[in-house]
């Protein structure tokens, strides 16, 4: 027999109340930790998808759109820019690498990106099998594309005009798969990579037949004359962080061009999505406070209703401090049980969520919960429980055993 045993028996003697306290606390803990872990994972994934790209140059329009389109490959591009202009920008000494990309077609919904050999190195992508793009109409598949469409080296595909799988307008030029990349867990896994020439060739050919439809598709790379080749955008990494300050301003002054900084645009995006995260976090904290009140009520009820039990323990020789320990152990047992359960549910729950999200392409990676967040949530719960216990033990401090035990009222 010890204090712990008495606390545990107290908990067991009111299963419903204990269950409710633990349940509500688990709910808030799961929400709090879950939202943190999702946010971390989401932002980490975004950061990864940026690769080494510090700046993207494209046609004038929304800078966020430019980033979403050319870096994360989620949106339509703002338009095209001159390849000659792009090459000129790339010569700036502050720039380490400038990778041109040109796209406008898809195969089964996966984007076909015309670019140079440097594109893969932005994402540290390596070939799993086959070789790199050597000539026009060669393509290398991102790992998810190959997995999902079950394509192998030597297979040929026909590209579709546009960026979504609508199968309205199929190009007649066959693209041949010459290589497949290793998985990178970055956006490149979902892309089909070819060289710039392929994109120009496909559309050069197309122009002869389908002139009128071209007007409707911005962001479409096409070639009119050799010296007026166009690309969609230019992905830039800096040699020197000073470039971040001076170059965007310089480029934005040029007619038809804009420079967008992916990190800055993403931060802007987070500011919007952050509202959602903040709301859920606030709700979780409210539930946390409610569960604190429940723990307090449970303990306070025990202290009040079982005043005779506690007084009896005093006649057994228990000190006041030992009675306080009984109450404190009870509160902390509930809190720690809930914390452990919440943590467990989170692990299982998020794994399941990510499994569903990754059904198509294994792009999303669950990030470990930052230990600061764990510490923060754990700390909040310890403070909450301590306050509940301190409030609940007040009657013990004021307790008059003689009166409680007295029959003469």
């Amino acid at each position, binding site marked *: 027999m010890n204090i712990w045993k008495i606390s545990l028996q107290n908990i067991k003697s009111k299963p419903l109340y204990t269950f409710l306290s633990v349940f509500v606390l688990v709910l808030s803990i799961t929400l709090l930790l879950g939202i943190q872990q999702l946010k971390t994972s989401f932002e980490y994934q975004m950061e990864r998808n940026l690769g080494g790209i510090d700046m993207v140059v494209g046609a004038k329009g929304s800078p966020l759109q430019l980033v979403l389109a050319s870096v994360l490959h989620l949106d339509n591009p703002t338009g095209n820019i001159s390849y000659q202009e792009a090459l000129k920008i790339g010569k700036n000494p502050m720039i380490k690498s400038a990778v041109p990309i040109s796209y406008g077609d898809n195969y089964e919904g996966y984007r076909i990106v015309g670019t140079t050999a440097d594109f893969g190195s932005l994402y540290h992508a390596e070939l799993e099998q086959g070789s790199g793009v050597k000539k026009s109409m060669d393509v290398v598949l991102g790992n998810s594309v190959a997995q999902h469409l079950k394509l192998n080296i030597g297979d040929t595909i026909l590209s579709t005009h546009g960026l979504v799988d609508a199968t309205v307008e199929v190009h007649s030029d066959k693209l041949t798969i010459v290589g497949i990349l290793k998985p990178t867990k970055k956006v490149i896994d979902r892309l089909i990579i070819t060289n710039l020439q392929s994109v120009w060739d496909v559309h050069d050919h197309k122009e002869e037949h389908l002139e009128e439809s071209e007007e409707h598709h911005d962001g479409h790379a096409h070639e009119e004359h050799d010296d007026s080749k166009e690309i969609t955008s230019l992905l830039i990494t800096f040699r020197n962080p000073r470039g971040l300050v001076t170059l965007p301003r310089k480029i934005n002054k040029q007619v038809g061009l804009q420079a967008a900084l992916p990190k800055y645009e993403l931060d802007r995006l987070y500011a919007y999505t952050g509202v959602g995260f903040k709301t859920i976090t606030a709700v979780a904290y409210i539930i946390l406070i409610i569960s604190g009140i429940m723990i307090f009520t449970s303990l306070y009820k025990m202290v009040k209703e079982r005043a005779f039990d506690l007084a009896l323990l005093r006649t*057994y020789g228990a000190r006041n401090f030992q009675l306080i320990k009984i109450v404190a152990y009870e509160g902390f047992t509930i809190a720690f049980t809930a914390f452990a359960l919440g943590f467990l549910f989170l692990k299982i729950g998020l794994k399941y969520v990510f499994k569903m999200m990754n059904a198509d392409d294994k792009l999303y990676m669950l990030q470990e919960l930052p230990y600061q967040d764990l510490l923060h949530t754990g700390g909040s719960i310890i403070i909450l429980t301590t306050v509940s216990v301190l409030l609940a033990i007040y009657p013990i401090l004021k307790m008059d055993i003689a009166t409680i035990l007295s029959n003469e009222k």
Partner: protein
Amino acid sequence: MIQTDHLTFQYKKKDTSFSFPDLTLKQNENLLILGKSGIGKTTLLHLIAGLLKPKHGTIRIDAIAINTLSNRQLDKFRGEKIGLVFQKNHAISSLSVLENLQARLYFSKHKIEPSAIDVLLKQLDLHKIQHHKAHQLSEGQLQRLGIASAIIHEPSLILADEPTSNLDDENCKIVIALLIAQAKKTKVNLIVITHDSRIKPFFQNVITL
């Protein structure tokens, strides 16, 4: 050996004060204190148990003047030397019969052989229900558990506050006989306070407040 000397008590918030006759009990002696409600019977019992502190006078139990002890020392003294029996609420409701006795031993830091617990449980006919929770027990079973809790740690004084008031004639006899028998067996003093005159014949020493 219990001795009280010029004992008076006053409640903090009330004007009523009590003064009590001097008591002297030699080893193995029992005492019945009779009195009407409100006369301060329970107060006297609580003074002797160290739950209340007297205004004046001294209380000596086994040569210890308990009115001079600190609160901490009183807790310890109570745990070791006193066994209290009440009219109702005899046990910790969330604990089983056995756990109640173990808790009693734990807080008084008194160690006995596990077999001694068995013997006591059998004597009080509690061994078959030793794993039942206190809140599941009948009034008679609870009263017996209360007595078991009061003697398991081998105190030098058993104090019983209206132990029979809630009981019918038959159970009244059983309980008081049990208390006296247990006191005799463990050679301790027993003080019973009550307004229940049915138990008067069981005692040689009787004082009326």
